[in-house]
């Protein structure tokens, strides 16, 4: 595997604020790599440095083998970017926006129009190409921006919050375009998001970033399994007795009793489940309901950012933060 992006202690300081703190990542060619974190975590700053918009305060990074400071022009030629905020010209038509981009990136005149047609088809906007941009909806603009970023055949595509502020339908649309794109073109995609679902569905690997640092980095599956396994939720006629028995048998890592449920944290729910049922039957406890819940990235995020915050702050801050996170995530 060739490496598409490699950063070494990449850091950005704005006066007293450290926006990105010694970030080291390595992204393979053809990978969809997600940067997941709350607003203000430093995702956009990080991306801006890789796109050569911002100069790093210290550290280095290479994109497609080019240094982001000394070979900025080469980096720019090999990347495509969809910014967090819209960056298309309202007073031009879709086609004119595309032509302008092709000119800026020195796409040869003779292939320009066939390429524009090709990328417009990809996002299903070919029949709107001659309309002025101010007649486009938010989702269409986003799709046009994605199409635009592909005209010059970039090797690496940066998507900064590609579905921010879009309705669920447009979001689904854009997700399927991104997946399609990866399959067809085999380009490397770096995307930032604060939607768990987005990171989970699209990315091959995810870096969780909080307070300017990368907290953890892995595949969505591994991140989930890193959370001490799964949760078995049991409702029974005698929760107290059952939980005592389970604790005696040392079947699970942790038991959390709520009003009518037992939440059992286990490494492997499927093997433990049979033992628990056996135990319930032998101790005469009637089970009303049993469910297994796999942790989603939401749990993962809470787990990691929670720990991070506990390290340098009080528990009060933790609960406040967690509540805020939850508000943001849902």
């Amino acid at each position, binding site marked *: 595997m060739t490496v598409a992006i490699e950063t070494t202690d990449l850091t950005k300081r704005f006066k007293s604020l450290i926006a990105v703190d010694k970030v080291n990542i390595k992204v393979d060619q053809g990978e969809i790599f997600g940067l997941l974190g709350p607003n203000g975590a430093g995702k956009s700053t990080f991306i801006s440095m890789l*796109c050569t918009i911002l100069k790093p305060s210290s550290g280095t990074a290479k994109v497609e083998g080019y240094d982001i400071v000394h070979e900025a*022009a080469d980096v*720019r030629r090999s990347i495509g970017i969809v*910014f967090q905020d819209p*960056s*298309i010209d309202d007073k*031009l038509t879709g086609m004119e926006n595309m032509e*302008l981009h092709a000119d*800026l990136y*020195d796409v040869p005149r003779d292939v320009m129009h066939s390429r524009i047609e090709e990328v417009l088809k990809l996002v299903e906007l070919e029949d709107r190409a001659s309309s002025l941009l101010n007649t486009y909806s938010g989702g269409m603009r986003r799709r046009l921006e994605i199409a635009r970023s592909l005209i010059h055949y970039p090797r690496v595509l940066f998507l900064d919050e590609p579905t921010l502020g879009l309705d669920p339908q447009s979001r689904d649309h854009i997700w399927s375009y991104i997946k399609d794109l990866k399959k067809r073109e085999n380009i490397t995609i770096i995307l930032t998001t604060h939607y768990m679902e987005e990171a989970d569905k699209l990315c091959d690997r995810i870096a969780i970033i909080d307070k300017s640092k990368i907290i953890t980095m892995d595949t969505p599956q591994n991140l989930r399994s890193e959370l001490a396994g799964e949760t078995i939720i049991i409702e029974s006629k005698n929760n107290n007795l059952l939980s005592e028995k389970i604790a005696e048998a040392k079947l699970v890592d942790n038991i959390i009793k709520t009003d009518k449920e037992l939440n059992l944290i286990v490494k492997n729910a499927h093997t433990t489940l049979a033992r628990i049922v056996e135990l319930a039957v032998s101790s005469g406890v009637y089970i009303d309901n049993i469910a297994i819940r796999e942790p989603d990235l939401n749990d993962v995020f809470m787990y990691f950012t929670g720990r991070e915050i506990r390290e340098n702050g009080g528990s009060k801050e933790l609960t406040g933060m967690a509540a805020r996170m939850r508000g943001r995530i849902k």
Partner: protein
Amino acid sequence: MYALWRRELKRFIRDRSRLISSIITPLLWLVIFGSGLRFSISVPGFNYQQFLLPGIIAQTLLFTAIFLGISVIWDRQFGFMKEILVAPIGRISIFAGKMFGVGTAAMFQGIIVIMLGFVIGVPLTLYGVSLAIPLMILITVGLSCIGLIIASLMTSLESFGTIVTFVNMPMFFLSGALFPVTNLPSWIKWVFYINPLTYGVDTLRSVMIPGWHTIMPLYYEILIICVFDVAITVIGTYLFSKRQ
């Protein structure tokens, strides 16, 4: 650079209200101001409207060129600037693209004013106009840079508007566009002499009005405009690259 230039022009042409006002405003100046002031300002030996036309051409170039600098702020606010800044082209090309775009739009309006002058019966010769156009280009280069410099330094549309008025009005009134400089008391003349637009107006008059006497020899005046253009282009390119 060509692509950026073309974009500026397309935006300019699509803005209908600006096109209409670019015809109405100079017309008001020429007809109403021209008829009104004809009786209070005397320019010995010349028809006042004939005297006024080059002044109004310069005014139109000034207002349009400086005002269009706003596109920099506009692009920044609507995000388009990012798309340009991240493209594999240099800051100098971006600045030049903007400058030529703004300049062409200003020239376009300047030429409309010449045609208006012709329509309302200001005596013009084809020869005079053909000499005026290259001079207008020379004047516009520097003026477009002023607008772009202000826009590079300002962050909001409002502050841009305020500063532009502060720059436009004195440059216009203290350029001799409306009255002859040579009649003024000498203590105020120096204000006119440090205003580059004074030389723009004066050189335009010298080619458009037969028998016009320039303040300084024509070559000096053209030289002053050129020096001003070069200086302000260098400053503009530098500031633009640094601020974006």
